[in-house]
């Protein structure tokens, strides 16, 4: 069990998070650039001192600012896979993997034997004597993983493990990484800005924005009920915030929508762009949410077009290219918007 309360001020960053991770759990810390993800990882590693807080892993106290405890990085039972991997360029793959064991006092012979078995396990047998610069991105990543795992850490930290790879290599490496992470039974924390990576690798997501945890939960929970603009954008839904009273949601900014969900109080409301219908004239009939706007941006994505609508109720709609022609949509052109009450998902904020 990792219990981390971490407060660090570093330049413009004000990081203040509290996260508990259960034994055997894989957690992805997801957030935009500058959210403080890497600082969070460095604080867990002991490379950045805390301004306040306490970090414990089971019975081991890593940091406790109130009692002045700070365990040096080299004394923490951790393994870190850094962004860019940071394989020592002057050492072979084998020597890189053996480094941690040597530093922890193993004999050269034992360290090399253990390193060899780790490289074999990660299908790197033929690259034992290779220098890091001779390795492909995926190979380097596995060497970095082997190096971090070789010391048998109880906490494994990975900082953007796929960011250094070509897009073409990423899929295969992600699958491999998932398999290797599954075979390790300690706590695993993956830092990433890539939602696909987070969802693919982790049991639980922690969304970090501007130094704060804004949401945490399983990938399904987080994607179903986004609680920030960042997550909503990642998932690709329209997110609104307001106060609900018996199906009537008064939004911040003045507009209001009707929902079929029976939640009251401070709420989030989401609408999938596909559920947003566009019309040339005011539609008649059942939709209870109808308003007027004008198209502000057209974004063609294959057989779909995302249309940004400005007006009293800004929203994104997703329609077919045929619909765009039919509606004679042009940027700045007037358009009527309707959303069925049943397509609006409302949940407590």
């Amino acid at each position, binding site marked *: 069990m990792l219990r981390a309360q971490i407060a660090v001020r570093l330049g413009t960053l004000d990081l203040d998070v509290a996260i508990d991770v259960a034994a055997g759990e894989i957690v992805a810390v997801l957030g935009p650039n500058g959210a403080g993800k890497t600082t969070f990882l460095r604080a867990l590693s002991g490379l950045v001192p805390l301004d306040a807080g306490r970090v414990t892993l089971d019975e081991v106290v890593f940091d406790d600012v109130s009692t002045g405890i700070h365990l040096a990085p080299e004394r923490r039972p951790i393994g*870190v896979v850094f962004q860019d991997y940071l394989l020592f360029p002057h050492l072979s793959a084998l020597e890189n993997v053996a*480094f941690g064991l040597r*530093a922890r006092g193993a004999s050269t012979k034992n360290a090399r034997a253990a390193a060899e078995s780790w490289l074999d396990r990660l299908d790197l047998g033929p690259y034992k004597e290779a220098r890091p610069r001779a390795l492909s991105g995926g190979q380097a990543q596995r060497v970095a993983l082997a190096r971090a795992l070789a010391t048998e850490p109880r906490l494994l930290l990975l900082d953007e493990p796929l960011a250094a790879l070509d897009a073409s290599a990423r899929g295969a490496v992600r699958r491999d990484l998932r398999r290797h992470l599954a075979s390790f039974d300690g706590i695993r924390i993956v830092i990433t800005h890539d939602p696909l990576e987070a969802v693919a690798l982790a049991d639980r997501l922690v969304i970090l924005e501007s130094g704060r945890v804004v949401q945490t939960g399983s990938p399904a929970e987080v994607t179903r009920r986004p609680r920030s603009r960042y997550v909503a954008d990642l998932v690709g839904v329209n997110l609104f915030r307001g106060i609900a009273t018996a199906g009537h949601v008064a939004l911040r900014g003045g507009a209001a929508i009707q929902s079929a969900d029976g939640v009251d109080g401070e709420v989030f409301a989401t609408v999938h762009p596909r559920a947003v219908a566009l019309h040339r004239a005011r539609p008649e009939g059942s939709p209870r949410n109808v308003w007027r706007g004008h198209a502000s941006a057209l974004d063609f994505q294959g057989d779909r077009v995302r249309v940004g609508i400005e007006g009293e109720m800004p929203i994104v709609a997703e329609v077919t290219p045929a619909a765009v022609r039919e509606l004679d949509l042009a940027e700045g052109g007037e358009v009527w918007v309707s959303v069925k009450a049943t397509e609006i998902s409302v949940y407590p904020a």
Partner: protein
Amino acid sequence: MSSERPPALLAALAIVGVAFFILPLAGLLARAPWQSALGELTTPEALTALRLSFVISLAATALALLLGVPLAWIYARVPFRGRDLIRALTTLPMILPPVVGGVALLFAFGRRGLFGQALDAIGIRLPFTTFGAILAATFVAMPLLVLTVEAGLRSMDRRYEDAARTLGAGRWIVFRRVTLPLIAPSVFAGAVLCWARALGEFGATITFAGNLPGTTQTLPLAVYIALETRPEVAIMLSVVLLAVSLAILVAMRDRYLRAF
């Protein structure tokens, strides 16, 4: 890489700049007694001075490495009050006239010097000894090494050190097994510059250590002394000095650029 045609003015000035360095060398080579070259170089005086110069310059480089690399590390990594001042003080010998450096060394380590009196009391004499010549060479040459290594430390990616620490390496192991290998090109370049400077050292040596063949008379001193009586020997010794330094500087440039 595409080559670019330089503006005419730049090209002209660059050519003057090159000529400024090449002409004196050409003058030296033109006056060198090539027919009797081997004879001039194998005189006992010349051989003694050559051997002594290599011993002294290599020992000075070793001493500079021993003291200079840690100093560079402190300058690059430990911010402390007065660091800039201390760094400037330890860089001063680079611009100080070497003769002044020699006098300063005498005031410190000479028989009546601040520290030399205590040394003298326990029977250690530095002036007029080979070790004194090594000290003089180190004094003027070490700043080159310190500055080069410090620059190397500042430009290296410190995250490698972080990686090493998370792998369980304490500060010393990090320094020895990660930092030092990563800055090896800078250390090598600094050592070569330091060595070249030590090899050519004249003023501080003659002032602090004097001039005695076989003990403190290094190549530049022998050249200076021989210039008036046996210019052929002086010129040939200078040519050797030039050839060796040139070879090292050319080799170093190549090596220096070829980092990992």
